[in-house]
């Protein structure tokens, strides 16, 4: 019994070592993970890093370029500090990225598992629903949903969950269809495991890897989607600093103040880039054959 318990733990430790050593060999992945850690820290510590009310206009220092004394990244059309707003904007991106990916991931995976496990009409209905959703551009779907359910941070998370669960459902379904007929499922059933137990304890653990890999890539997709939606005037509303709405406000001053569109966009692009690099690395470590 003791050996049986010790074995998986040793295997886990081996995995972590492999994880760490592969991360330190891949400089790009290391840089990406470090950068993302920094962004998450900035998001958590945000209110401590900024001085006072970031939404309060200060007309004395309107449109100051970066490297102005006291304003390292300049000020916007209302004299608000771009650096402070950027830091607080990261809270929105990080929150949206995490929350919508986790919720969409859990819901989508469960739906996919259930559809594949039971098959029949449940599967047909769910997959037709997925077909319909996939016959629209993701961003259009998200815009329409957001316009209908309303603006704000909470609703943009709901929007991305509704628009984004399909991806997970399809992957989970495909994986489970392949696993369903395997002997260990039959064995579990023979020893008396119910459907719920087979799905949660026997099937689900086997599809965790692809779900995790997709999730990292989805984080980037959802963060950019939130920014696009806020940029178009839905989602998070001014004066709340979200990177997308900051870019949209800056667009009106594109001739006078290049930094207003460049800086929040650069932050957004770097986060998306870092998540993609980290996701690629994670895929290579966890399951190199996975094509996502």
């Amino acid at each position, binding site marked *: 019994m003791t050996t049986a318990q010790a074995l998986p733990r040793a295997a886990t430790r081996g995995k972590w070592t492999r994880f760490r050593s592969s991360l330190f060999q891949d400089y790009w992945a290391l840089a990406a993970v470090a950068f993302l850690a920094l962004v998450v820290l900035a998001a958590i510590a945000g209110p401590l890093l900024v001085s006072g009310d970031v939404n309060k206009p200060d007309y004395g220092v309107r449109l100051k370029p970066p490297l102005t004394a006291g304003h390292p990244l300049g000020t916007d059309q209302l004299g608000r500090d771009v650096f402070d707003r950027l830091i607080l904007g990261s809270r929105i991106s990080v929150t949206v990225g995490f929350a919508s990916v986790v919720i969409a991931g859990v819901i989508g995976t469960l739906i996919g598992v259930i559809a594949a496990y039971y098959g029949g009409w449940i599967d047909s209905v769910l997959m037709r629903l997925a077909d319909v959703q996939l016959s629209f*551009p*993701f961003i*259009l779907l998200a815009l329409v949903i957001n*316009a209908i359910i309303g603006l704000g941070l909470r609703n943009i998370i709901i929007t991305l969950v509704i628009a984004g669960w399909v991806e997970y459902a399809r992957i989970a379904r495909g994986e489970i269809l392949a696993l369903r007929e395997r002997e260990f499922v039959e064995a579990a059933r023979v020893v008396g495991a119910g459907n719920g137990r087979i799905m949660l304890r026997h099937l689900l653990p086997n599809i965790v890897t692809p779900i995790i890999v997709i999730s990292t890539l989805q984080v980037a997709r959802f963060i950019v989607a939130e920014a696009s939606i806020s940029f178009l*005037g839905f989602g998070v509303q001014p004066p709340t600093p979200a990177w997308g709405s900051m870019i949209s406000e800056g667009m009106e001053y*594109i001739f006078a103040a290049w930094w207003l*569109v460049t800086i929040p966009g650069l932050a957004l692009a770097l986060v*998306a880039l870092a998540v*993609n690099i980290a996701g690629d690395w994670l895929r290579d470590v966890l399951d190199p054959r996975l094509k996502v």
Partner: protein
Amino acid sequence: MQRFIIRRLFHGVIVVFLAVTAVFFMLRLTGDPVLLFAPMDTSAKDLDEIRERLGFNDPLWVQYGRYMRDALQGDFGESTRLHRPALEVVLERMPATMELGMTALVISLVVGIPLGVLAAVRHGSVWDRLAGLLAVIGQAVPNFWLGLLLILLFAVALHWLPTSGRGSWQQLIMPATALAAASIARYARLARSTMLDVLRQDYIRTAHAKGLAGHTVLWRHAFKNASISLITTTGLEIGRLLGGAVVIEQIFAWPGIGRVTVQALLNRDFAVVTAAVVLFAVIYTVANLLTDIAYAWVNPQVRLS
């Protein structure tokens, strides 16, 4: 082949039908449609009158039946803002979106595929790494930000190109490039990986051993086989470009379906939104159908399954 097309067409019709249904119920279940377009100070009595006149007091399934009957005839109602049939408002914007989307598609094919092939042939070289870097960046950079950077560089700083609008070829360059960037990255990635797979095959070695010229083997033997997977992604890619156009059109004031849809959403002009959503679904379905047909034509195995 004929049966294959008919089956796919039938599938497409079902998807569009379900999409129209979904839009109807989403709009009806999430709010009073009259409140969406009536002025804020309309009295309760007037609101009731509008509801009665437009049939919003009927049972939901009666409304649905009427809505479906009209939709089948291409009648999605009148734009509450422009006071013209919604479908007309959307359809007249289609050529602009087609022009933008097709240009972007051509750019991504012409740039992305040779880039990927080059990376595969010169595997491990500077070209390979450069293509890899471009692919990663192209995939991560948000298209609307790229569009704004192009404006900053070529319109604001250099004065080479106009910032927005449609009419001349100069106005097409920036939006089409910004739209194409992500597609270029995906095509380059895919072309590279499939070409690497194909180039390792035995029949390629045989072709070389027969003494065929290098470029004949590359294009006639290797690329022809690799192109199957490139064709299958084109349908998906058209869909992605359409989605990208929704945002890009807004930045460059490009008068296409994307821009009219975003404006209709901002104005809560839901007749136009519905018509646009249906049009998107139809374009998507047709693009996928054409891809399936092209795929079946290239790969006879598909037709038989």
